[in-house]
């Protein structure tokens, strides 16, 4: 997801999500905050490590799932702004994805 076009956006507006295997996904904060949990991590008063460094590590989420989740964040933003497209989910990912969704409160 770390596409070159987005690297122009200011660093403060980006957040790094790190998967269990150590893959880093840099996405916009706005997209990340589709997840209520990530939103809390980034906005909670006081300074948690995540807020300070702008990166969150998910030791229990695999790269595959995290990638799908990031795709979902962007899709969700588009959907909310009126663009009604389908979000395709491979059946084999469903279970894990649902658990992650529960964890992330998405």
């Amino acid at each position, binding site marked *: 997801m770390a596409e070159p076009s987005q690297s122009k956006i200011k660093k403060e507006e980006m957040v790094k999500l790190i998967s*269990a295997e150590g893959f880093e996904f840099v996405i916009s904060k706005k997209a990340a905050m589709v997840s*209520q*949990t990530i939103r*809390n*991590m980034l906005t*909670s*008063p*006081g*300074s*948690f*490590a*995540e*807020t*300070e460094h702008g990166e*969150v*590590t*998910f*030791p*229990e989420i*695999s*790269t*595959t799932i995290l*990638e*799908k989740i990031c795709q979902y964040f962007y899709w969700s933003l588009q959907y909310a702004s009126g663009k009604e497209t389908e979000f395709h989910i*491979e059946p*084999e990912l469903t*279970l*894990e994805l649902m*658990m*992650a969704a529960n*964890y992330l*409160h998405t």
Partner: protein
Amino acid sequence: MSNQKKRNFQIEAFKHKVVVDPKYADKTWKILEHAIHEIYNHNASGLSFEELYRNAYNMVLHKYGEKLYSGLVSTMTYHLQEMARSIEAAQGGLFLEELNRKWTDHNKALQMIRDILMYMDRTFIPSNHKTPVHELGLNLWRDNVIHSSKIQTRLLDTLLELILRERTGEVINRGLMRNIIKMLMDLGPSVYQEDFERPFLEVSADFYRAESQEFIDCCDCGDYLKKAERRLNEEIERVSHYLDAKSEAKITNVVEKEMIASHMLRLVHMDNSGLVKMLIFDRYEDLGRMYSLFRRVSNGLSTIRDVMTSHLRDTGKQLVTDPEKLKDPVEFVQCLLNEKDKYDKIISLAFSNDKTFQNALNSSFEFFINLNPRSPEFISLYVDEKLRKGLKGVSEEDVETILDKVMMLFRYLQEKDVFEKYYKQHLAKRLLSGKTVSDDAERSLIVKLKTECGYQFTSKLEGMFTDMKTSQDTMQGFYTAYSAELGDSPTLVVQVLTTGSWPTQPSMTCNLPAEMSALCEKFRSYYLGTHTGRRLSWQTNMGTADIKAVFGKAQKHELNVSTYQMCVLMLFNTADRLSYKEIEQATGIPSSELKRCLQSLACVKGKNVLRKEPMSKDIGEEDAFFVNDKFTSKFYKVKIGTVVAQKESEPEKQETRQRVEEDRKPQIEAAIVRIMKSRRVLDHNNIIAEVTKQLQSRFLANPGEIKKRIESLIERDFLERDEDNRKMYKYLA
């Protein structure tokens, strides 16, 4: 990327460790407990949100929610007790600041804790009916800090003390107050009400009770009201600055009760500064303040209104019964109008045009105007005066204003028919003597009377105007027909008045001089020639005449006199000396009229065209009269007025009164018949009530008189008494 994804594909459970370790929960909780400690110690920067969240998430997922929850309660309680101790230790003025600081800390910590425990908030708490984390945090704060025995009373005392200091003029830290009060409100309405508002209201009531007592003993009414108003505004401002908006009504209620309601009567009746004095001296500002303050309490306005009404009635009664005032009717009515203006102004400036006050004003005027039976006459005289000369040089609009005011007084009259009677008399005089200043004004008043009382009331008055107009045409016709024949005989102007439209006066004819009576006869035959079947009778008492006279050294004057005076003066064309008896005999003028007319001819300085022996102010039966050769005047035209009593004399008044009573009889009878015709059967009391109601617009019918009229109608077989019930009347068609 899709390739990579395919490659990495695997079905894999979430990486929870299978919980075999019984210490797992304890361990996890230790991590979280530590984190909570760090948060309260402002040391959260090293903590990983994700880790804490995951731990809490896993604890809940593995059914350790209960442990997590109770752990949270005890950890938080521990920290809050710490905080309470630190707050308790704060000295004096620092107490509130410390409390505020700790509250802010706790709030922030609570927020963070809630965020990391969000999964518990979402799942465990609703299904187990526990208190959500945020609310739990507030409750624990309330129980451990606010309700701690050493803080609870101290907090309340401090708050009340600060408010008291602000009331006595000190400046306090309103921001801090706002924060603390906000905290109490955040803890729930019951905390705010029980721990602050209720005692606050009690203390305020005591404070204002004492203060109002002090004020009322040393201030006059106006100052007191100013102070009360200021206090009220202060409290409203206080609420807007740092109290719950819902407290406004409660605290203003306290101030209103203690400062206004408890002292209302005393304030209103203060000897030298109370309501009456304010009314007398037109203190619009004070009155306005009193109105706006008293309006806030029950019975407040009615208190003002009652005092105003009774004051109005008293002064009005004095005014209408003051013998001095009664001497000059114009002045009398002017006083009434001034009084009305005064109160209109007070009501509009100070009492925000309150309808109930206007009604009170109207009823008071109605009350006292009718106390004086001469009011109708005086009001008519006032109009007369205005229409004769008072309106000269006054703009049309002002004329309307004056007339409108008069109409307002007229509305208050109960005996409108008496007014009509007098108005007719005065109008007749005005019309016949050509004294009306403005025809428009006259007509405008008639229109007003018509809108007020209906066509019936003014039809006769309008008839009078019509007569005046037709008479002009008649005279023109007369002179065109007879001009050749008349030559240089005197000019005659006749006004033909319809009997009934004009106030009837017993015709008191006199012997006109020969020249005149010949002319009059000619007119009579002309008029009867064109209008058959009519009767003419001369009203010599209402006429005027212009005559030319030559005095002593060929001084020529034109004298404007009444018809009677003309008859007297014409006698001196053939005689030098005439005794009173001779004049009376020759003219046939009734003696009272004759005396008045001789008096104005012989006794008024500057207008004494006759000389009298002996010289005296009054006319005696034995006096003799001569032409006054020494008569001089700067003017060529001399107007000799008759000495007239402007007001009616006592016997005349009785007479008018009697005529009014006579006129009322047929009206009452007509009303009775109208009512009985529609009702067929009605009892006595109801007839009286209905008749009174029907006639209200004209006069207040006297029940005794109504009874007499009923009897008279029974005699004439319009009605009969019911056989069984003597109180019932039946209508006989």
